[in-house]
Structure formats: structure tokens, C-alpha cells
């Protein structure tokens, strides 16, 4: 059972508290991604798990053992850093072997492990090169090799892909995923890239300002964000947020906009909130375009069509708020220009309190 458990973990630098009590339980073999805007405390949290930062409060357990005061080397974790942290004077083989040599493993054992890891990561041909003679992706692989060769209980990644170009990042992302499937080691991965988070994670932890906003599987967070922050953070382009008032429709509550009305789910919470000012969230891909104004749709003015190939982004405005619609292009290109409004399925419309940002719509959809 090599899970990691954080209980009300706090980090303070002097009087300045930057992490305000994090509760998180990472199951054995789980891949958990911490995601959030810059400066929200992701790295700090990860470094506390690694033992590179002192824990100011709360309790950290790895594998059932309290680790608050345990030295990093005795925590049996391995960390991959954003800038790879490769030793410039050592060749690839010795970089990978560094941790094992420090631990005074036998020569044969080290050589065998290095060979195995180099095989897994496709580095066999580069073992004698210095890091300066490697490409960014290869360096990244060496950094990973150095972590996996020690067979630790937990992997920690701090934005390992952010120094790579977009194409390589996609490639390495898939490789990390494959590697995790193969090795099955508990992993905590920090990123500010929501695509990385969505694709890699078993569960995502969305952080903001030193606190956890929501924990859940990628689809749970995507479909049922607990608040406007999480809703806006995941998904690209981000969820559209427009002001509305809840009204009473014929069969269900409705959201009244400047340019129309949309039916909402028949949830008691919404039914009881008639007259309340809310923010309505609709994902670009869940809005359907209409070319004729009907009752259950909202009027919008088309500004710009961005064609991406199989899909297009329609940049429109509702009242004076921007609203993006993502739609298929096949056989539809001529209709795109004549868009006059949109509609959306009630259970895909999220409703947030205008002041607190908390979701009123609850779980409208099974993930």
C-alpha cells in the first residue's frame, strides 16, 4: 500500500502562508495531477511531499508512515524536475546511475538497471553522451530514467514537459502515460497545462490560491465542476460564462438572458432559486447553433469564424459578453455564417451563483 496521504498540510514562509491546509489521498498506483494557475502552490505542495520544503503544519504519510520529519532520501520518492536537473559532467549512463551509486548498489546491479531503463526509454544508443549533446526530449527521458531506475514508491513530477515544444510535449505525454501503465507506480504530477492534466490523470486536483478547489476524475471535473473557477480552468477554449436570471418556465426552470431563454434541468435547487442572479456556464462544444430564432434559444451576433479543419470556433457576442461556440464543419460551412443564436441541452448547462461562484446545478450528468 504505497499511497500518499496529505492531511491539512500547511506551508508558511514566515508570516506568509502560501498553502492553506491541503487534504488529499493518493491511492496506490494512482496518477494524480495537481493543476492550477501560476503561484497557486502546486510546486510547494509537491516539494513538501518530496521533503525539499519543510511542512509547516498537518501530516504527510507515505505508505502508512508519517513522513513530516523524515529526510528526503528515506521517503523513497523520486522527482523529475522542470529543467531536468541533469549533471552536466556525467554521461547519460552515469546520470541515470547517480541515485544507485549514491546508495552504493553493486556495480553489476547498477549496470543491469541502467540497461533496462535505457531500453524502456529508448536511450540505449545515447548512454555515452553528455547531456549537452542531447535534444530536449532526450534530456527529458534521461531525467525520467533517473527517477525510474531507483524503483521508488512514489514518482513526483514538477512540470516535466513545460520546456518542450508542443509536438514533443504531446509525444512525451503519451510516453509518460504508457510508462505509468507499465510500472504502475503511484505518481503525483504538477502542471499548469489543463490538457496535460486531462489526458494523464486518474484524478485531477484543481488548486487555486493555496487551496484545493475540487478533486475528481477528469470527466467529473469537466462535466460537474463545483464552482466557476474549476469550470473555467478545464477545457479549451474555456467554458462560456454569461449573466442570467433564473425564471419559471412551463415545465422546468429557465435561464433568462438578454437575448433569449434556455431551459434548465428540473432540479429542486434551481426551482427554488427563481429570480436569482446567476452565471450560466456553457461549454463551447455543448452549444448548438440555430439559424432561426426559436423560443428555447438565445440570440447572438457572429463576429468571426475560426476554421480549425474538422471543427470551427464561432466567436459571437450575447448582449455584450463574448460567447464561443465550437461546431463541426463537415457539410455545414455555409450555415456557419448565418448563425443567429444557439441552444443547449438542459443537463449540459451549468448554473453558478453570481456572487460565490458555487455551482447550483449539482451533478446534472454522470461522468
Amino acid at each position, binding site marked *: 500500500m504505497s499511497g500518499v496521504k496529505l492531511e491539512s498540510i500547511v506551508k508558511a514562509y514566515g508570516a506568509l502562508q502560501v498553502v492553506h491546509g491541503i487534504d488529499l489521498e493518493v491511492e496506490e498506483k494512482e496518477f494524480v495531477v495537481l493543476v492550477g494557475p501560476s503561484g497557486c502552490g502546486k510546486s510547494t505542495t509537491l516539494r513538501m511531499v*518530496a*521533503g*525539499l520544503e519543510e511542512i509547516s503544519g498537518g501530516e504527510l504519510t507515505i505508505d502508512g508512515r508519517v513522513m513530516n520529519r523524515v529526510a*528526503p*532520501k*528515506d521517503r523513497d*520518492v*523520486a*522527482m523529475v*524536475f522542470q*529543467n531536468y*536537473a541533469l*549533471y*552536466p*559532467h*556525467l554521461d547519460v549512463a552515469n546520470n541515470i546511475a*547517480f*541515485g544507485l551509486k*549514491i*546508495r552504493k548498489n553493486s556495480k553489476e546491479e547498477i549496470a543491469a538497471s541502467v540497461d533496462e531503463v535505457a531500453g524502456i526509454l529508448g536511450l540505449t544508443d545515447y548512454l555515452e553522451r553528455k547531456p549537452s549533446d542531447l535534444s530536449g526530449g532526450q534530456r527529458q527521458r534521461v531525467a525520467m530514467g*533517473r527517477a525510474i531506475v*531507483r524503483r521508488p514508491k512514489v514518482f513526483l513530477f514538477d512540470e516535466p514537459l513545460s520546456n518542450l515544444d508542443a509536438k514533443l510535449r504531446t509525444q512525451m505525454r503519451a510516453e509518460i502515460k504508457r510508462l505509468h501503465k507499465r510500472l504502475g507506480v503511484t505518481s503525483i504530477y504538477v502542471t499548469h497545462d489543463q490538457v496535460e492534466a486531462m489526458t494523464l490523470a486518474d484524478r485531477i486536483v484543481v488548486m487555486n490560491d493555496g487551496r484545493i478547489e475540487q478533486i475528481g476524475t477528469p470527466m467529473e471535473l469537466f462535466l460537474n465542476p463545483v464552482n466557476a473557477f474549476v469550470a473555467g480552468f478545464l477545457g479549451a477554449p474555456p467554458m462560456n460564462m454569461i449573466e442570467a436570471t433564473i425564471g419559471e418556465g412551463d415545465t422546468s426552470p429557465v435561464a433568462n438572458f438578454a437575448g433569449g431563454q434556455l431551459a434548465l434541468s428540473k432540479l429542486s435547487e434551481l426551482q427554488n432559486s427563481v429570480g436569482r442572479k446567476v452565471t450560466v456556464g456553457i461549454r463551447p462544444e455543448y452549444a448548438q447553433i440555430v439559424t432561426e430564432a426559436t423560443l428555447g434559444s438565445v440570440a447572438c451576433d457572429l463576429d468571426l469564424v475560426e476554421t480549425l479543419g474538422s471543427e470551427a470556433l464561432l466567436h459571437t457576442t450575447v448582449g455584450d459578453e463574448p460567447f464561443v461556440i465550437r461546431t463541426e464543419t463537415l457539410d455545414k460551412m455555409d450555415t456557419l455564417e448565418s448563425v443567429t443564436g444557439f441552444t443547449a441541452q438542459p443537463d449540459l448547462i451549468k448554473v453558478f451563483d453570481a456572487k460565490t461562484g458555487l455551482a447550483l446545478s449539482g451533478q446534472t450528468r454522470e461522468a
Partner: protein
Amino acid sequence: MNGADGHKADTPKVAYTQRSRMNRIVDHLKRDWQLYVLLLPTIIWLVVFLYKPMYGLQIAFKDYSIFKGVANSPWIGFEHFETLFSSEGFMRALRNTIAISFWSLVIGFPVPIILALMFNEILNRRYKSTAQTIVYLPHFISSVIIAGIVITAFSPSAGIVNTALSWFGIDPIYFLTRPDWFRPIFIGTTIWQEAGFQSIVYLAAIAGVSPTLYESAVVDGASRWQMMWKITIPCILPTLIIMLIIRIGNMLEVSFEMIILLYQPSTYETADVVNTFIYRQGLQNGQYDFAAAAGLFNAVVAFVLVIGANSIAKRYSRTSLW
């Protein structure tokens, strides 16, 4: 296939690049003339104080007389050098120079590195800066005062060293008049004077090592001792090599004023070096041509040392001065 053809094809290209290189230099001068103007004082200084005096070097091969001047004195070939190498005084100075330089290098080179590594391990900031200031201090004090302190400290009557020895019942030792003590005292003094200041270069190099290397090593389980040996030292190795080349190049330039200040006729046997020998022959005895020959010899050896050290460094590591 490549041979003859390639050569023919290359010829016009070479001419072309040469012409364009001239053009490039002119372009550079036009575009960045302000920078070249900034460089000018240094060039003038070099020419006036280092290149122009080289004209006088010819007296090493002449029977120089002040009255005839440098140009009109008659050539005598290598006569001065022959005298030099058959002179017991010069050979002794040469042996002493080599011995003192060698031991200064062997003992003196690692000291600032060790100091820098030790400073780097001090965690308390205030303690660290205080310690640094204390070891930097002697560098800013005139050699005359340093020598004065050393002479006082080792004086047989009131010196702190002999006082301390007397507590153990040891009779006063006349350190500064004893040839066997001169080199340890001299080398110790120059290390005391310069090691702290020299450590700044290494501290700067250490500061340039990425902190994540250490963090990564901490997670891998390295101790501070292991990190020093496996990360810090290898990472500052290029700086170390450059400094070593410079040191080797300057090896024969033993801190001449410190020798003058500390030696006395009774210690010439181990203390007289080429530079002090030149000084005595040239300025005190007026044998300018003879002294110039000795100086030229010293310079040629130093030149060979720099070139040699640099090419060795180039061959065995990726760092070199040029």
C-alpha cells in the same frame, strides 16, 4: 571524387571570403566605433608599458653601455646567457624560483578552493559574511604591512610565535635568518594574503551551479559530502582548470616584493629568485644587459608554461584559455 574537384571549386571561394572578411572588419569598425574607442586606452597602455619596453630587450644580446644607448651598443650574441648559466648566483636563483613556485602552486592552489567550498557550506548568513571579510582582508593590506606583521610575529624576542613556543619550553628560533624556514614562511604568507580573495572566483563558480542539481541529489539520497564531491567540484572544474592555467603561466612570477621584504643575505640560499636576482644585478649593480638576459629567459620560460598548460587543458578537458 572529392579531392581535386573540391580543391578547384574552393579556390575562388577562399578569395571571396578573404575579401569579405576585410569588408566585415571595416563594417565592424564603422558600426561599433564607440566600442573600439573604449578599447583604445587599454591598447595604448599595453603598447606603451608592455610592448615598447620590448625594444630594450635587445640589450640582452648586446654589450650595453648607457652612453652609447640601446641602438649603438655592439652585438655580442648569447654571451650574457652563457655567463648566466655558468653563474652560480643565477643557477641558485633558478632552482629557488622553481622550488618556491612549485610548492606555492601545490600548496597554494587548493587553499582558495577549499575555502570556497567551506564558505559554501556555512548556512548562517551573518557568520558566513563575517568569515569571508576576515579572510579577504589581508588582500587589501599593503605587502609592506603584511611583511611587517610577519616579521614581528616571527621575531625571536617578542614575536607571538616564539612566545608560544616558549610555553612549551622551546628556545626562540631565529626564523627569518634561517634558510630552512624561509620557504614555509614565505609560502604561508602569500597564501594568507591572497587565498581569501582568490576564493571569490570559486565562490562565484559555485553560485552558478543550478540549485536543482542539489535538490535532485537530495531526493536521490546524497549527503552534503557526496554533493560536494559529485556535484560542486565537477561543476566548477572548468573554472578550476582556467585558474590553474593562469597560475602555471604566472608560476615564475613569484611575489617578488614579498621576497624582497622578507629575505636577507643570510637566507639568499633558499630565498633568492630570478626576479630578485635581476633586481640586484640590474638596479643595484648596474649590469643592465645581464639582467635583461635573465629577465628574457624568465619570460620565455613563462610563455612556454602558459602555452603548454593551455594545450594540455585543451586536450584533456573541454576548457582552455584560448
